């Protein structure tokens, strides 16, 4: 994992900038050194020549006027110059003067003939100037030192400035972006990325990244919103499908009445409610008389019509939302009458019997269709099965007693 060690981009950049700047400074410094060497040498030679030339007229006057003290002083002044190591003067009349360090005479001296003052011809003295090599190297070192120091300070300053700018303009914003990205969770998706940039900077790559983030965030946001919508749509579809399935599973397709399955669920609920509120509950069993014969003689289509008409008739005659009808078997219906006592239920059953016979007569002229009814009221402590069994037994008894009647009678 050492390869993935974290190394700040600013540090890497600064390192390479510093390395290259130092290399450049060294390269330029070397050129400068070579140039300085030649330059200092020239300057040094010029200085020595100048010293000689400027002193020749003065010495000429001093020698001519025979002022040994002045000559000595002048030589001291010449020798005091850092460029000069040793200076000696020989007068044509034999006198010699010298000043400076006698140990510096190994070098080749510069000769200056001293003419008499005001006359360019003739020689009254000879001046020999020996350079001071130490001064030459001192000046060279000084020149190089100043240049190196200058380059060093410049390089350091530039690197420091770059480091500062990198940290301020690159490292900090990038770190902030990285932090923002790592903390980006679905619930923080709407918070925009904001960077504290120095005022007055132009739009740059960092801004592009920030804008990219903003585009990304809004894209994700709209994608999520789209997903919600799709889920709502699918849920609605599912609900309607479920509703269809429910209807299919509870409604008898032929008659539109509840089927036996739903009846089994609901009758228990009705019973529980009646017990809880101590209300009356009546159940009517109904069976179409001789339905098999109708089917056989008139065809199944008519049989189905009969069943549909019976269901329609019951719905017409009953209290909507309170009373309800289920197809219990082939031609057998069960009618549940909440809040209804036995006499009212028997009356209802009688009304249904008469209405059925009448509506069948209009539907099928020439054919008499009747039905038998068994009516009972729930007795406290009785189960659904016992209640239904009693009603069924009463229907059976009505059938046995000649059909087209309601049992018990009022």
């Amino acid at each position: 994992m050492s390869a993935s060690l974290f190394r700040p981009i600013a540090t890497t950049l600064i390192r390479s900038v510093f390395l290259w700047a130092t290399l450049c400074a060294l390269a330029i410094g070397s050129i400068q050194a070579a140039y300085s060497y030649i330059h200092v040498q020239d300057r040094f030679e010029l200085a020595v020549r100048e010293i000689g030339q400027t002193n020749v007229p003065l010495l000429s006057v001093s020698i001519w006027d025979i002022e040994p003290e002045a000559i000595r002083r002048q030589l001291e002044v010449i020798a005091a110059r850092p460029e000069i190591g040793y200076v000696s003067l020989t007068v044509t009349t034999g006198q010699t003067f010298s000043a400076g360090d006698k140990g510096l005479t190994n070098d080749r001296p510069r000769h200056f003939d001293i003419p008499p003052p005001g006359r360019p011809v003739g020689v009254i003295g000879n001046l020999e100037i020996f350079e001071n090599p130490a001064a030459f190297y001192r000046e060279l070192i000084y020149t190089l030192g100043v240049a190196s120091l200058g380059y060093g300070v410049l390089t350091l300053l530039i690197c420091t400035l770059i480091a500062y700018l990198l940290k301020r303009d690159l490292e900090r914003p990038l770190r902030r972006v990285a932090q923002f990205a790592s903390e980006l969770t679905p619930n923080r998706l709407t918070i925009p990325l904001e960077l504290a940039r120095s005022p007055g900077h132009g739009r740059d790559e960092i801004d592009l990244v920030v804008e990219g983030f903003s585009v990304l965030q809004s894209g994700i946001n709209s994608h999520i919103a789209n997903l919600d919508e799709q889920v709502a749509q699918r849920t609605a579809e599912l609900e309607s499908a479920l509703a269809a399935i429910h209807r299919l599973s509870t409604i008898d397709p032929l008659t539109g009445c509840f089927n036996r399955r739903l009846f089994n669920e609901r009758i228990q609920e009705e019973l529980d409610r009646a017990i809880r509120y101590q209300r009356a509950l009546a159940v009517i069993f109904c069976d179409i008389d001789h339905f098999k014969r109708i089917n056989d003689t008139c065809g199944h289509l008519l049989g189905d019509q009969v069943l549909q008409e019976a269901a329609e008739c019951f719905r017409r005659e009953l209290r909507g939302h309170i009373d309800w009808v289920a197809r219990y078997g082939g031609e057998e219906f069960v009618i549940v009458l909440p809040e209804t006592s036995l006499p009212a239920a028997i009356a209802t059953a009688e009304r249904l019997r008469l209405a059925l016979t009448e509506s069948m007569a209009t539907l099928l002229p020439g054919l008499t269709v009747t039905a038998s009814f068994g009516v009972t009221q729930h007795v406290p402590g009785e189960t659904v099965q016992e209640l239904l069994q009693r009603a069924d037994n009463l229907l059976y008894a009505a059938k046995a007693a000649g059909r087209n009647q309601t049992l018990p009678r009022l």
Partner: protein
Amino acid sequence: MKRLAGLLALLLFVFPSLVWAMSVAFINPGKSDEAYWLTATKAMEAAAKDLDIRFEVFYAERQHPRVFELARQIVARPVADRPDYVVITNDYATGPELLRLFDAAGIKTFLAYSGISEPVERAVTGQPREHFKGWLGSLEPRAQEAGYLTAKALIQQGRRAQAQAADGRLHFLAISGDRSTPASNRRGEGMRRAVAEAGDVVLEQEIFSGWNRAKAVEQSEWLFQRYPLARLVWAGNDQMAFGAMQVWEKRGGKPGKDAWFSAVNASPEAMAALKSGRLAALAGGHFICGAWALVMLYDYDHGRDFAEAEGVEVNQSMFTLFSQKDADRFMVRFGQLHFDQVNFRRFSKALNPKLKRYDFNFRQLLD
């Protein structure tokens, strides 16, 4: 008032010299043991004694900035103790500043030995009694005469001794004093005039030895090497001549035999050298200038202002070319620096009303 006047009259009667004696101070630029300037002082003291002048002298010991120090000391005195007149010189161009110092203090001044001659100095000082009211005037010996007389005598000596080189000309060296003292330049001028008049003389070079014997010794060595043909050596004073002679002797020569030297200054040593023949020519006597200055100040103080007949800046012939006989006479009379035998009152216009013009030549003191 009457009693006060009476007391004053009594005082005048009892201490006439104390009350009436004029007082003069002299700032001597030379050394107190230097022959020339000591002689000058002695002559002045004798003149002061003759003329009842209270006289005091201060030596700058040849350190010319010291003259200003001395001047300030005089100015700093209480008014009663200040001298009536101060005699100063213009050696090394110190005159204008001295004039300014004394004039500011209200002390009267008189320039002796060397006056104002350079235009630069003149611009500062103006004429006497103009800008500096207390500057009464000046008395100078005609310095050209010294140079001229000695150079001419030296050339004549060279001709007599047939000291000409192979080119038939007399090769001549000059050792002057300094470049800034007018008296030095004048002597040089006189010397050059004599050389120009001679026609057969080559002035090889004029050097400046600062009136100093040791420096003349040092420079002469070069000079004799540089000009091996030179046989005549002119010097601006006696000390420099002696220095050159010393070198010549060291080189194996004999002054007065194979080379000839001239000098200026009436010093006993120079007189002796003249007598022995080592010096070919000697001029002097101008040391008396200070004594003459006292005579002029005396006359001024006693109502005979020299400005009337002589002008304020007086240039008088004082130098005498000494013969060997003159040398003897000088040594006898003044060898001990006693000038008491000279009666300086004789030269005063105030004391000799018939005297119309001053005669300050030294020769009259010898004859």
